[in-house]
């Protein structure tokens, strides 16, 4: 028999290292032609930090995304970015890049205000142009501004660094472990085959408070990948270790999810902006994974009335529990 159930899982996740300093830094240089180079220590492992950091710099400087070139993760060129871990890079390296761009922008705004004959506060930088607030029809190009810098003997360079405002955990671990937290809720729908113990995850709704989504597709990509990793955690993944020997060190016997196992996933982005984050951003990398497994376990309970507490819930474990429950009836 196939029976369905729904379950919910929630989580919170502190962004950055726990109660420890974990700074990151970046350099920004705006070139004479209006293109931009960002140097950031932050390692992009595919999650898309190069893209997100470039977006932050582009927005800050008022240039288009394509103008920004980023060099990341090269110790000879880039300052420390710290580890790509703890869902910290958008928040911490993001702020570092934001601050570096702000510093590089100082001379740009100064010169633009001189050319536009207005106060610095009135300068609007957008789409590789500048204008006086309210006079959108009278724009000057970034190139013109940069030539202005050149003739005045000025450069547009900036350095930025950021360390979240956390504090050490002291007696009984009291303190401020993180400056900000991400939150999430997943609701899963599963189908349990009561005769074979197989569990199929049909749908997952995944709502994530990420502060501000700098890049929605990237955020969704993290959420969707997290859902499948969470499914593996709940249902299939386990390294079998016997007296220190690993019995299944391969893709054949350590079971991660395939495209065929993918449920329908509905990512929902909630934007409770964080005061300290760049444009309000927090993080999503690890939060994406965390609520999926509890939601699935609770959905299985909803379906068959068995509360599992030891992972993973492979078919044999589920069927065994179903049979035991039938026997005690």
């Amino acid at each position, binding site marked *: 028999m196939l029976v369905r159930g729904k379950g919910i899982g929630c989580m919170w996740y502190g962004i950055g290292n726990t109660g420890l300093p974990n700074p990151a830094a970046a350099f920004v240089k705006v070139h004479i032609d209006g293109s931009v180079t960002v140097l950031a220590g932050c390692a992009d492992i595919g999650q898309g930090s190069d893209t997100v950091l470039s977006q932050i710099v582009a927005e800050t400087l008022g240039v288009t995304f394509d103008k920004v070139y980023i060099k990341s993760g090269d110790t000879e060129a880039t300052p420390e970015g710290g580890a790509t871990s703890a869902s910290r890079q958008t928040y911490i390296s993001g702020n570092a890049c934001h601050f570096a761009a702000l510093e590089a922008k100082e001379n740009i705004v100064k010169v633009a205000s001189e050319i536009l004959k207005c106060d610095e506060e009135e300068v609007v930088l957008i789409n590789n142009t500048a204008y006086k607030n309210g006079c959108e029809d009278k724009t000057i190009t970034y190139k013109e501004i940069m030539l202005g810098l050149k003739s005045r003997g000025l450069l547009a360079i900036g350095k930025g660094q950021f360390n979240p405002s956390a504090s050490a955990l002291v007696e009984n*671990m009291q303190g401020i472990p993180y400056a900000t937290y991400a939150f999430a809720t997943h609701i899963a729908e599963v189908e349990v085959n009561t005769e074979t113990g197989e569990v199929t995850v049909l749908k997952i709704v995944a*709502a994530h408070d990420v502060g501000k989504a700098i890049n929605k597709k990237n955020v969704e990509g993290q959420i969707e990948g997290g859902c499948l990793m969470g499914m593996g955690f709940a249902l299939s993944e386990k390294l079998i270790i016997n007296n220190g020997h690993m019995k299944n060190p391969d893709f054949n016997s*350590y079971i991660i999810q395939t495209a065929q196992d993918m449920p329908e996933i509905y990512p929902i982005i909630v934007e409770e902006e964080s005061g300290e984050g760049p444009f309000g951003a927090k993080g999503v990398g690890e939060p994406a994974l965390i609520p999926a497994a509890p939601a699935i376990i609770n959905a299985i309970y909803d379906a068959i009335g068995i509360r599992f507490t030891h992972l993973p819930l492979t078919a044999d474990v589920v069927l065994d529990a179903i049979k035991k429950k039938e026997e005690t009836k």
Partner: protein
Amino acid sequence: MKEFNVIGKNVIKKDAVDKVLGKAKFAADMKLPNMLVAGVKRSEVPSGKVININAEKAKKVPGVVSVLTYKDIPGENIIGIINKDEPILVEDKIRRIGDAIAIVAAEDESTLEKALELIEVEIEETQGVFTIEDALKEDSPKVHGDTNILAEKILKRGDVDAAFKKCDVIVENEYSTPVIAHMFIEPEATLANYEEGIITFYSSTQNPHYDRGEVARMLGITLNRVRSVQATTGGGFGGKLDISTQCHTALLAFYTNRPIKMVRSREESMKVSSKRHPHYMKFKTGATKDGKILATDVELLQDTGAYGSYGLAVITRSMVHAQGPYEIPNVRIRAKMVYTNNPMSGAMRGFGVPQVAIGHEGQMDALAEKLGIDPVEIRTKNCFQTGSVTATGQKLVDSIGIYETIKKAADKAEQIMDKEGK
């Protein structure tokens, strides 16, 4: 809301074009003239004492350029991202299967394979510890120093014992989660080169600056003579935060003055890279009959395997998060993390939080059931809001979106999921 031009927009990922063209260079794709390939001779026993390493036969194989052991390390032979406890090459004590004993550089793969087979390592196997229970026994063999406890901590707020007396319902459950592997699709690799006094290496890594520091200390040279570059990296999920191939390739490049490439096989990667800490957890949670949680008492036992890696970060983070995203006035979390001769546990997506979430979310549903209220309702009733105080005494002041996520997820689920349920 403020309008943005680039923020919040789906721009083209910076790396996407090179990746769809197959042009992105991962470390294993790189090549330099005169390059050698390298590999590691590893321990096949989980616990033991190295009596003798004989590499003479291996060195005589034509095409073998260098065979190195711990004796060849000019600087410090110890690494670790938080606590330094792992040798780059084992000196005497074997602590796990896969401990690195010797490294080889050769002209080609088949010569390398032959050489690794010919290295003779005499090991006296010793009794290991493989369970947390055994590790905690007073007379157990010790993996490091004179205790197997890497860390033991307590987090406390309020008075849980007094609070449980005021609870109308209490649920107690034990939970466990297994050893989990990252399974990034790209196995670790490094290409290293030593030229003009600068050691340069390109690696699959999540933390190039940390890698630089470890290589510099190993070689006993200053940081400005080491260049660590992150190659295109094929996923990490925490598994590429530790040193993998960086030190070994750098050491061989340092000695041979030739470019060195080392690429792990899938099996080697899985056996040697860090794993998600297995957890054994006890949760006791109590609430009033109207569903307000008053207290939670949690005990965590965690196995970090042979080395600390990110263990100290995992124990702290898991404890801080064990209450879940709920305001609970009385909290006690006790945790112990132990060394064993199992594979090394370290960082993996969530650092202990996915494990404790199995506990706190299991408890929420168990409480809801006992109280006869809806699982969604018990969560909205208890979740953090602006002004809530966490178990570490932190007052949450901004960006507290948990309630919103519960509401939005529940609304969407209502729309799209089978109303019948079963």
